[in-house]
């Protein structure tokens, strides 16, 4: 089975061809970073516009790269949400129209599910259930991944996502967008103990994350003008790391049958955070699985792979599914006060 996957839920246009044998035949991602950078964040209208211009040529490019005609593809999948609805729609309609014209089945994919299952694309031995820490610009969640289509949300953020906090702190420190990689680079030259910063919800009985207070404390530290920027960056990164580790430890304790700790999303690319999670997993006798950066950030190979997993699990999806701004993986999870828009 070969699936063509499309991704357009935010500011990355992507297309990929993936086989059920886990071979990535072709995978392309066009970042729109340069389009949105002047605005300090993603502009939905610009994102949707760029997807329209780029997606069809990209589909042609991945087919050419794999040396396959569209007719050789067994199914077509596209992200149907959550994300910026106008952006999601472009990939969704493209996928639906391709599937219709080529006479292939269409699979609408939840972007979060694609992140959640992506580690199995690179780690064939990774068995269900595993604990997933999804940390990106739009999400900060802990999920028990029990199978394709089977998720239990154990925790989510009450306010900002971790990546969002990195981006806001990057802005406060005068670094460009996105802030994550820039803050990490600056942090290398700083002292993580130099600036006293809070660790919201660390040790709390409730399972969730919160980063708003930390961001406010950074704002104050910057305004004080007493600390070196590198020290602020390093101390901020250390605080986020402590929060992530504490909350993940709590979830691991609540999930004794977990076979692994998996970290996915852009923030999982952070070396310090990754090292801390690795140590935590080791304390529980578990491996830490982090998909490679190309699979961690938005891409279409994970969308194709999620469709493969869903079809193999015998799940039937409505090919005419609408684009969705919100689409929680665990529909039964209780709404959380002030949770991020996509949670």
């Amino acid at each position: 089975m070969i699936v063509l996957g499309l991704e357009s839920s935010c500011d990355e246009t992507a297309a990929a061809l993936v086989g059920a044998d886990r071979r990535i035949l072709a995978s392309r991602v066009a970042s729109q970073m340069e389009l949105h950078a002047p605005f300090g964040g993603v502009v939905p209208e610009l994102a949707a516009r760029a997807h329209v211009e780029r997606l069809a040529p990209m589909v042609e490019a991945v087919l050419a790269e794999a040396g396959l005609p569209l007719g050789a593809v067994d199914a077509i999948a596209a992200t149907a949400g959550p994300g910026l609805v106008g952006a999601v729609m472009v990939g969704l309609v493209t996928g639906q129209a391709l599937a219709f014209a080529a006479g292939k089945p269409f699979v609408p994919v939840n972007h979060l599910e694609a992140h959640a299952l992506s580690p199995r694309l690179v780690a064939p031995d990774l068995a269900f259930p595993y604990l997933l820490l999804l940390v990106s610009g739009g999400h900060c969640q802990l999920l028990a991944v029990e199978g394709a289509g089977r998720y239990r949300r154990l925790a989510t953020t009450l306010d900002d996502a971790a990546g969002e906090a990195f981006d806001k702190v990057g802005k406060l420190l005068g670094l460009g967008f996105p802030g994550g990689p820039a803050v990490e680079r600056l942090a290398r030259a700083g002292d993580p103990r130099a600036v006293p910063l809070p660790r919201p919800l660390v040790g709390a009985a409730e399972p969730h994350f919160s980063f708003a207070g930390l961001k406010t404390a950074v704002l104050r530290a910057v305004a004080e003008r007493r600390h070196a920027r590198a020290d602020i960056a390093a101390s901020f990164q250390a605080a986020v790391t402590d929060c992530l580790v504490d909350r993940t430890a709590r979830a691991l304790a609540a999930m004794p049958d977990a076979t692994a700790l998996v970290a996915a999303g852009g923030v999982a690319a952070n070396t310090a955070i990754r090292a801390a999670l690795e140590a935590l997993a080791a304390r529980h006798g578990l491996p830490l699985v982090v998909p490679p950066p190309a699979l961690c950030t938005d891409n279409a190979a994970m969308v194709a792979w999620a469709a493969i997993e869903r079809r193999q699990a015998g799940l039937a999806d409505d090919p005419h599914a609408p684009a969705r701004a919100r689409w929680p993986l665990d529909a039964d999870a209780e709404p959380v006060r002030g949770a991020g828009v996509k949670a």
Partner: protein
Amino acid sequence: MPDPLTASAPGGAGPVLVIATGHALSLALVDGADVLGEHHEPLARGHAEALVPALQDLLAGERRPAEVRVETGPGSFTGLRVGIAAARALGLAWGVPVRGVSSSQLVAAEAEASGMTEPLLVVLAAPRGQIWLEPLRDFVPLAPAEALPAEAARARVVAWPHAMTGSGLEVLGVPALQREPRARFGGLVPEGRLGPPLPRYVRAHEAREVA
């Protein structure tokens, strides 16, 4: 760089699928002036959900078009993008050319077919009570399309000495034919007047100044 989707296409080789989603949800399979099939429904939103099922109905029986034409605006940004994304996907899958036809060209094609004279001012209803204006002659814009608040648009319309048509006239309270872009007229626009399958984004700076 020429768009690979629009390059080197022989016209007139068979039926043309026309997709117009900037205003209504309007689809048609045409051969010049002949309409082989049509789906036209007034629809303010929800184009994305309705489009592919409507295409399936229209093209049932394996009628594969030789070309796809798609409305490029001015129209609803979301609607236009949905139609263009679909058109480009269909062109890719079928291996047929995809060309853009402007909303004003569709309206002008209908107006000409009913004997209206040129030049023609196309007046279209835009969101939030605004009006899109585009004067055309022989399917070529005489000035860039504009988005204007109703008052400014009315002044233009009153001053226009020639024929005019379009859904925006009703908004302005001007008695005339209330046409909206309709796919069935897409086959009447000469090939040389078509453009790339990309949304036309209309400048709205004057609107902001006035508002």
